[in-house]
C-alpha cells in the first residue's frame, strides 16, 4: 500500500537555526498538509497546500514557517529561526481530494528537538 514518507525521523537543532523537514506524499495525491504534535498534546493543523500554493494556515503557522513543493514528489516545511517551543513531532499528510470527506494519510513524522 502506498505511504507517506518523512525524513529525517529525528532532527536535533540549535535554537535560532533553520531546519527543513521533508515529506514525500502519496504519488497521485494533490492535497498536502503539515501538522504538529507537542509531546502529550493533541495533533494540531499547521498548513494545507494545493496547486503550488497555501490554501489554508493556522495561527501557529507564522512568518517563521514556509512550505514548498520544489519538484514533483517532495513537500517541505521550513522553520527559519527555530525556538525552543518548536520542539514537537511534525507530521505530513496527503489526500486525493480537499473536499468530499476524504481520509488523510499521515507519515510517521519527524521528531524535532530544539536545544
Amino acid at each position, binding site marked *: 500500500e502506498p505511504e507517506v514518507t518523512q525524513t529525517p525521523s529525528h532532527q536535533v537543532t540549535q535554537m535560532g537555526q533553520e531546519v527543513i523537514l521533508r515529506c514525500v506524499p502519496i504519488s497521485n495525491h494533490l492535497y498536502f498538509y503539515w501538522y504538529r504534535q507537542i509531546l502529550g498534546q493533541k*495533533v*494540531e*493543523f499547521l498548513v*494545507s497546500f494545493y496547486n503550488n500554493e497555501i490554501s*489554508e494556515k493556522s495561527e501557529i503557522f507564522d512568518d517563521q514557517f514556509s512550505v514548498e513543493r520544489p519538484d514533483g514528489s517532495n513537500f517541505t516545511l521550513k522553520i527559519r529561526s527555530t525556538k525552543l517551543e518548536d520542539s514537537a513531532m511534525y507530521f505530513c499528510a496527503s489526500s486525493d481530494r480537499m473536499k468530499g*470527506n476524504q481520509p488523510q494519510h499521515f*507519515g*510517521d513524522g519527524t521528531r524535532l528537538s530544539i536545544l
Partner: protein
Amino acid sequence: SQKIEQNSEALNIQEGKTATLTCNYTNYSPAYLQWYRQDPGRGPVFLLLIRENEKEKRKERLKVTFDTTLKQSLFHITASQPADSATYLCALPSSSGNTPLVFGKGTRLSVIA
C-alpha cells in the same frame, strides 16, 4: 471556536470485551467525523469516516455512531485484543469547511490479556 472532547484520557479493558470511546463536540455542526488510531511514535492511521446523514458505520470489529443532536460520536471495538491497544483520535473538519482536521486529544486504550 469548535471544541472536541474525548471522554477519558485512558481506558483499560479485558481482552474479549467491547471498548467504547466517546467524542463530544461543541460550537459546530460538521458534515462528517473521522476516527484515527495512533501508536506511540507513529503518525495517525485512518480507521473510519461517518457522514452526518449516517447513524452508524461498521468495519470488521469497529463500529462508529454519529448523533448530530447530541453532538457525539461513539467508537466501539468488539472482541477487543491486546493488539488494539493504542490511542484513538476523533477528528472533525475545520469550521472553514475545508479538510484541515481538528483533532481531539485522544483516548489511550489498553486491552489486558
